[in-house]
């Protein structure tokens, strides 16, 4: 049920490659997020879908029809901009009505639809106000109303919540998700905030330097990252760097600088020599050094160097004689450790992932 298909999209500007062979399909009724840090190309991709820029090569299809050669007004997409882009010389209702009036709909119909759109966001009483007199949250809702009133098939949102304060942002996140579910509309959402992406999305496309690294549900991104970047970017990770030292099928032995060895599962193509093993901190079990080490587990010994109390979770930093400190999370109620205590840390080889830094 793919609604939008992005096929082999490339975009280069003055010799610099912004987007590199992007292939993506978004399903109807899906809340899809493009996640990445600034400069990764996610906003550019969104603009290509909207028709505000042209791709260097490739195609964009909606409902199996090519739309990349159409100007914005002929595409069934509408965009909500990062700084809302409300026209300052028009009232809220005139802003919302703008797209409808361009299509030369009868004025009575325009007014009715616009008022309904504003009403949907509880802004009926603000219809006659100019944008500068509205709060950030209100402006943002007018921007969404302005886009939605034109009944697009796909709503494109470019980091719409980044200018709001934390409380407002959380409130709008809930509102947007509820709105999307209620309308059954396809949303494509651009953000650099991975928590936001995880909360809102059905699926996430992680982007890095113009490439699409992985497209998956939030759960799959977390439990099964496919590239070095995705593993580093999504969620917290403890990283251990060492040298590859033999393999058995999927599992490799890694020799750490402190002399100890661990087993890890290969997740990407590896080159001979150095590699980095990733473990999720909550998957690391911390035991007093006197406890017996469980079999079939990676075991390292070390000393607790810092304890961070985080409410329901406590983070322990353990110095294992390596360059990087090992971070382990545990439930605060289970925490009986003291600073300087000698401990054993154990983690399962299946949860220890090997990525090569350069591979995708």
């Amino acid at each position, binding site marked *: 049920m793919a609604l939008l298909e992005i096929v082999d999209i490339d975009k280069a500007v003055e010799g610099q490659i912004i987007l590199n062979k992007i292939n993506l399909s978004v399903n109807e009724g899906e809340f899809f997020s493009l996640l990445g840090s600034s400069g990764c190309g996610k906003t550019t991709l969104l*603009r290509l879908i909207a*028709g*505000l820029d042209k791709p260097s090569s490739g195609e964009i299809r909606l409902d199996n029809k090519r739309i990349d050669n159409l100007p914005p*007004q002929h595409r069934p997409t509408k965009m909500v901009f990062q700084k809302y882009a409300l*026209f300052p010389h028009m009232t809220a209702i005139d802003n919302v009505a*703008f797209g409808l009036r*361009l299509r030369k709909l009868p004025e009575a119909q325009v007014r009715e639809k616009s008022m309904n759109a504003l009403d949907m966001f509880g802004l009926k009483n603000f219809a006659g106000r100019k944008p500068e007199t509205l709060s950030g949250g209100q402006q943002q809702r007018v921007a969404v109303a302005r886009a939605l009133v034109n009944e697009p098939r796909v709503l494109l949102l470019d980091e719409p919540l980044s200018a709001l304060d934390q409380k407002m942002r959380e409130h709008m996140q809930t509102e947007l998700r509820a709105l999307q579910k209620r309308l059954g509309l396809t949303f494509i959402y651009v953000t650099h905030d991975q928590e936001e992406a995880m909360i809102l999305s059905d699926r996430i496309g992680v982007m890095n330097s113009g490439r699409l690294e992985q497209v998956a549900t939030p759960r799959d991104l977390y439990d099964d990252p496919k590239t070095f970047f995705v593993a580093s970017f999504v969620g917290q990770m403890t990283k251990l760097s060492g040298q590859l030292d033999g393999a058995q099928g999927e599992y490799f032995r890694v020799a750490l600088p402190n002399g100890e060895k661990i087993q890890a599962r290969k997740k990407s193509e590896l080159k001979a020599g150095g590699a980095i093993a990733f473990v999720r901190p909550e998957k690391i079990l911390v035991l007093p050094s006197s406890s017996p080490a469980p079999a079939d587990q990676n075991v390292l010994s070390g000393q607790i160097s810092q304890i961070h109390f985080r409410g329901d979770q406590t983070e322990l930093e353990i110095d294992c004689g390596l360059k990087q400190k090992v971070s382990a999370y545990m439930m605060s109620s289970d925490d009986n450790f003291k600073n300087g205590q000698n401990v054993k840390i154990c983690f399962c080889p299946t949860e220890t992932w090997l990525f090569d830094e350069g591979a995708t």
Partner: protein
Amino acid sequence: MKKKDERRRPRPPNFVRFVLVGILLALYIPLICVVVGAFRQTEGMGAFNWFKEVLQDETLLEALWNSIVVGFCASLGATVLGAGAAIAIHRGRFWGRPLLEILSYVSLVLPEIVFALALLSWFFVLNVSLGLSTVIMAHITFSISYVILTIGSRLASFDPSLDDAARDLGASEWQVLWKITIPILGPSLLASFLLSFLLSFDDFLITFFVNGVGSDTLPVKLYAFMKIGITPKLNALATMMWALTAVLLFVSFRSPAFKGTLKGDVE
């Protein structure tokens, strides 16, 4: 950051203050003399006698009318042409863009007298008879660059995503221009118009070269009279001209848009 700045301005030595006061005196004493001279009384006549004489002088009234007509037409032309140029320069890439920018710069830097005689020669060679229309054409030419500067500085702080939003909602480039860009530029357009009007109203040298018989503007008439001699009537005329520009300036300073543009110019 502004608050920090306020405290950290070292007080200048006193002689700097003296210089500043001296300069203000040097600038304003002549102007005060003009105004005072206009009220010079001769036996039997009232204080406003000279002002009445000016208002009753038909040639002066005709010159005033010419100044206003020229000012209005030239400002209109310059604003329209300059606004188009400014928008094109700031928004687009087109053939001839560097040429336009260079010519605009040349028009600002060229000494008035060179420009005046060049135009005079050009009109002569083209066999165009000199009159109000040639004056208007000349005034438009030197005003355009100021309009480009004024509107250009406003465009520099214009939010580019407004255009994107309008296009996304279905507007063609032409519609974006008329429904979004120009309404938002409104105050700057007005400021450009006023600036052009002031420049045109006060211009002497260029008008002197390219005007014809009977199309004298007020500054040209003033000059002719000054060559003959200084009289209180001239002072009265000058005072009224100054009052007119002062009123125009005051009115436009009230509008926040103009103030912002002028401050931008200073910086």
